[in-house]
């Protein structure tokens, strides 16, 4: 860009070779590249906070673990808790439901997982899943008393007809994966901490 000057204004700009070093590099080109690079890097650095400010703020992150007391849940019952502003299903399976889940060969499923892989050791009857259908995010039925549990006795999503079995695995319908099992641990025999 700098060389346009010399032709336009002959009485101010020096000859084209002004400021040229021995090896034919013009100092002005060096300054040009250095200045524009510094401005470019500065501009990119400004983008970082502008993008980062839309990520979850500290108060949202601070509310991202939830403790649930599971002692009162009877076999065959489920409760809904809230984890990261989304429904969380905690369900105590009956022995028959555990048996039904184990009787299904995992390898034949769309998202192959066994019940043991989806529960904690020693608590195979305690199924903790997100209450968020993996298809498009509706809340499946089946956790509350009297709700439809679908063809496989687990959960049924009324939005687009996904059927989940007693281990929360997708068996029929458009959902691509099993109901998500969030990260959680038993802090005692009766309390879980999710997140």
């Amino acid at each position, binding site marked *: 860009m700098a060389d*346009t000057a010399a032709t336009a*204004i002959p*009485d101010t700009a020096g000859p084209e070779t002004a400021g040229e070093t021995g090896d034919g590099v013009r100092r002005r080109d060096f300054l040009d590249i250095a200045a524009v690079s510094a401005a470019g890097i500065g501009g990119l650095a400004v983008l970082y*906070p*502008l993008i980062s*400010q839309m990520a979850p703020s*500290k*108060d949202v992150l601070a509310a991202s673990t939830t403790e649930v007391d599971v002692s009162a849940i009877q076999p065959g019952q489920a409760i809904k808790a809230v984890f990261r502003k989304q429904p969380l299903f905690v369900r105590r399976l009956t022995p028959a439901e555990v048996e039904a889940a184990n009787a299904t060969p995992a390898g034949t499923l769309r998202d192959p997982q066994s019940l043991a892989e989806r529960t904690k050791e020693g608590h195979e009857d305690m199924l903790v899943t997100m209450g968020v259908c993996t298809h498009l995010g509706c809340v499946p039925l089946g956790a509350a008393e009297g709700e439809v549990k679908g063809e496989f006795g687990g959960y049924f999503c009324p939005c687009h007809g996904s059927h989940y079995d007693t281990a929360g695995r997708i068996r029929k319908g458009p959902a691509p994966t099993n109901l998500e099992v969030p990260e959680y641990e038993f802090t005692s025999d009766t309390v879980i901490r999710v997140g």
Partner: protein
Amino acid sequence: MSFPWAKEYTPTNGVAKFLDEKLPLPRLVYNAVGAGYPVPRNLSYFWNFGVLAGFFLVLQIVTGVVLAMHYAANAQVAFATTEHIMRDVNWGWLMRYAHANGASFFFIVVYLHIFRGFYYSSYKAPREMIWLLGVTIFLLMMATAFMGYVLPWGQMSFWGAKVITGLFGAIPLVGEPIQVWLLGGYAPDNAALNRFFSLHFLLPFVIAGCVILHIWALHIPGSSNPTGVEIKSESDTLPFHPYYTVKDGFGLGVALLFFMTMVFFLPNALGHPDNYIEANPLSTPAHIVPEWYFWPFYAILRAFTADFLFIPAKLMGVLAMFAAILVWFILPWLDKSPVRSGHYRPLFRKFFWFGLIPAMIVLFICGGAPAEEPYVMLSQIATAYYFLHFLVILPIVSQVEQPEPLPYSITEAVLGSDKKAVLGENATPAV
């Protein structure tokens, strides 16, 4: 418009040719801030502040849109969401401090821009419309800044809103109903906060529109310059790019150094500690002053302490405060001297440096000081001079003054001689 020697935009590749036919945006940019815009070759750093003002407008809009993502304009939670921005939102402190100090820097560069206009008489023909649009932008900025300061809903926000809307209460007969209407209540509350937020979001875009008109009007006669002598030939000009893109870029770098020093090291230096106390309608802070950029006008407001003829002091102060800015609108017709630059106007220069500027400084200091002596008397004297300067001194000076000889052309002013002047070519009067 442009000068006959302005370089013409020539699209080089297929995409550029296609664009140039359908929507000649690259051509517009080339002719506005590219090599296609010839600019006087002698512009000093005082000509940087227009670009800087544009930069700070963009900065305010970007940071403001970000803040609006996290703020809630509700009297119950406004103060809390402001603290939420400071403590919880990622980089929220940076966004808020950049926005608060950005407002101050916007005013700093605009005041320097106006100062340039005063000294070099940039408002004179053929640039009156640029000046009128500029004064309009300044008024819009004041309204926007005031309403923005209310949003954090601290003590200064609340009492600022009460005092400033109280100005309208000074209007005879209809004043009080107007004030109640403006606030949507008897004191600032949710209704006022909501409408201030809505307008604070809207007005910057109105300003941006006026800025486009301002630049459009500027590009018709082209930029003025420190000699005030109009462009005569190609040797008086340089293409905007690269000469003034580089000069403006350097100025921007310097301005950002000052700005970032404030944002990172003195973020609250220009604010008021009282605004970190939540709004309390039952208790006024002991010393209530507006933001620094309103001080000169605030001093004029408070200078009227006694009823004047049949006009009550309260109304007089309000009228004078608005008149102090509105008088700028008729400035192109008050200062009739054909010479533009203060550099060639000895008498004007004396009144400028020893009259107007000291008066503005006194008003600035008094506006930030408590309403007690000697500040009241000083602001009365300065206010009197301020109006005298514009309404009496400037018109008289422009009639009686003997200007110093002007250079024949910008080229002569820069190089000491202009071949065309010697040859008698293009021999028009040097104004």
